[in-house]
């Protein structure tokens, strides 16, 4: 059914393929930039991936102003504010974010602070709150999951309030997304699996949430097809370049989808778990996705049922609700296979969450902005019920 009104926006230039990173200095020239602030984390530096970036600048007249590698696993407001100050001090004119969602979101957050000439990120949170034009940003993901290289959202941990904050604006889209298989080849199987499930959750929620539209649906289904084809392969074999590039593209496509149709209660639960228990976002999404699909199938069984084909199920004439349960079980099967290969947990207790934390997680869940877009109403009791099932 066509929505009465929708918006779709995807202004990012995408470079995907072998040696895509070598084009970065050229693209900086087109953007009118000369001195880049590279935002990354210690894991990326230790894996030697920054050397690939540095090599791209070797015979270029563009330069790297500074390499900031202090991004934590969950990007925080304190780190963002520090990065913004360094950006000004080093007189950089663009950001290159190299890493997973945290590095890219940290760069986005610092970009907000720098461009709005603020001193504190906390003052600028919310949706469509950014007035100034942001500095150019190039995103080079080293994981295949968050899709942050093509989204208008940044999720940053508020250290004072102990919760995750969302920043949403059309201005947060990076200028360029660079998918280079050499940047994801060193991902360990566990990271491949959890970021891949993150991408799957993005696509599945984009397809089932209130803001869904015909264009984002195409992107969502395309992403799920690629994930079904490549995720297990990429997890089993780190040297499978095709599989890793396939997953990088799947994550990007899923990112385009959910950036335009938002997510729902699965992300609210994952955000809350991340805020309370510091569970990695991909693991939270992986655990909750099948339960959330079952929960939402009470309200939108047809949408959930339609995903079973792209997940490898058979198109069936069974009733929509039954087909939707098949979709959830296909996701569980995928999670089981990934868990065998990579060891990612399938239940909250295996992810280190204790039962006494569940009420706090449920309380945070119902205050998460993503919940608005969930097709089915979620109360505190509903959130707690899903948590207990996933526990």
């Amino acid at each position: 059914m066509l929505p009465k009104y929708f918006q779709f926006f995807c202004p990012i230039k995408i470079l995907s393929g072998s040696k895509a990173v070598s084009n970065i200095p050229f693209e900086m020239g087109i953007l009118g930039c000369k001195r880049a602030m590279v935002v990354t984390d210690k894991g990326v530096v230790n894996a030697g991936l920054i050397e690939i970036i540095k090599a791209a600048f070797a015979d270029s007249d563009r330069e790297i102003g500074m390499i900031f590698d202090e991004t934590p696993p969950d990007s925080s407001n304190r780190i963002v504010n520090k990065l913004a100050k360094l950006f000004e001090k080093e007189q950089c004119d663009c950001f290159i974010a190299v890493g997973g969602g945290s590095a890219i979101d940290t760069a986005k957050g610092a970009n907000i602070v720098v461009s709005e000439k603020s001193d504190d990120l906390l003052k600028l949170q919310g949706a469509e709150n950014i007035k100034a034009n942001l500095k150019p940003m190039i995103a080079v993901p080293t994981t295949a999951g968050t899709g942050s290289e093509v989204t208008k959202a940044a999720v940053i941990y508020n250290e004072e309030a102990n919760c995750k904050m969302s920043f949403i604006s059309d201005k947060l889209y990076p200028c360029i997304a660079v998918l280079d298989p050499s940047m994801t080849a060193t991902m360990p199987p566990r990271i491949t699996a959890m970021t891949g499930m993150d991408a799957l959750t993005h696509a599945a929620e984009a397809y089932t949430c209130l803001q869904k539209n015909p264009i984002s649906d195409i992107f969502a289904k395309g992403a799920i097809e690629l994930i079904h084809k490549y995720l297990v392969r990429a997890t089993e074999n780190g040297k499978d370049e095709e599989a890793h590039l396939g997953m990088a593209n799947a994550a990007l496509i899923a990112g385009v989808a959910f950036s335009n149709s938002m997510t729902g209660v699965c992300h609210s639960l994952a955000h809350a778990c991340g805020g309370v228990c510091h569970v990695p976002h991909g693991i939270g999404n992986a655990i909750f996705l099948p339960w959330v699909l079952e929960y939402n199938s009470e309200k939108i069984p047809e949408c959930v049922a339609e995903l079973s084909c792209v997940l490898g199920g058979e198109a069936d004439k069974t009733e929509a609700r039954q087909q939707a349960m098949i979709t959830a079980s296909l996701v569980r099967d995928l999670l089981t296979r990934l868990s065998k290969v990579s060891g990612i947990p399938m239940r909250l207790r295996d992810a280190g969450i204790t039962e006494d934390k569940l009420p706090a997680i449920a309380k945070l869940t119902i205050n998460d902005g993503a919940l608005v877009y969930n097709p089915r109403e979620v109360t505190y009791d509903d959130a707690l019920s899903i948590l207990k099932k996933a526990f």
Partner: protein
Amino acid sequence: MHLNKYKTKENHDFMDDAVYKKISLLRKLPFYPVMQSRAKFLLMDNMMLSLGSAFEVASRCVPEIKREIAGWNEGRRFAMQILPKGPAITLAKQGDRVRIVGKGVQASDVTFMFKNLDAAVPVFVGLQSTHEAMAQSKIMIQGDNAYAQEFNRAMSLVLANLFPVFAYKHLFKAKPKLGVKGLINKSKVYLLLVPQSVVNTIKHFK
């Protein structure tokens, strides 16, 4: 707009044509856009004041809303605003209730901004829910997301006590079930709403 009592199979198209012809004629009048815009502005101004009054009354009478706002910090402020130059109103938690601070955005912790009057009208007259309006990118939120969700929940309870049951399908993802006590509380809201609205209109008249 259809004049249903005159509508039959034979004259259905004729009546629709007649209505649309009249509307087309009105649109050709030079001052019609200004009048239409002004009418929407006045409607939204009044609806905001009514909604604010309903919030004041409901936060006094409805136990669920009292429980919802009990956890809010004292002085927390919310504003609703229609861009670019539409009406706006600010509410605040004062004591154990919510009160109208005044018209305009006044140092709010969270502001719900509607893109324009056309985005706001269906929401305020009960024809569209806030979550649908957000899904259609009609509303932007400035401020703390968690506060925004808490306000949204409280506002849903207010709307359940303000609008009649047949409007629920437009307003909620899941229809609230009021029960006997809920209906009694709703009657109290209805009884107190008109006097409170009059008081607020006089107090905040601009």
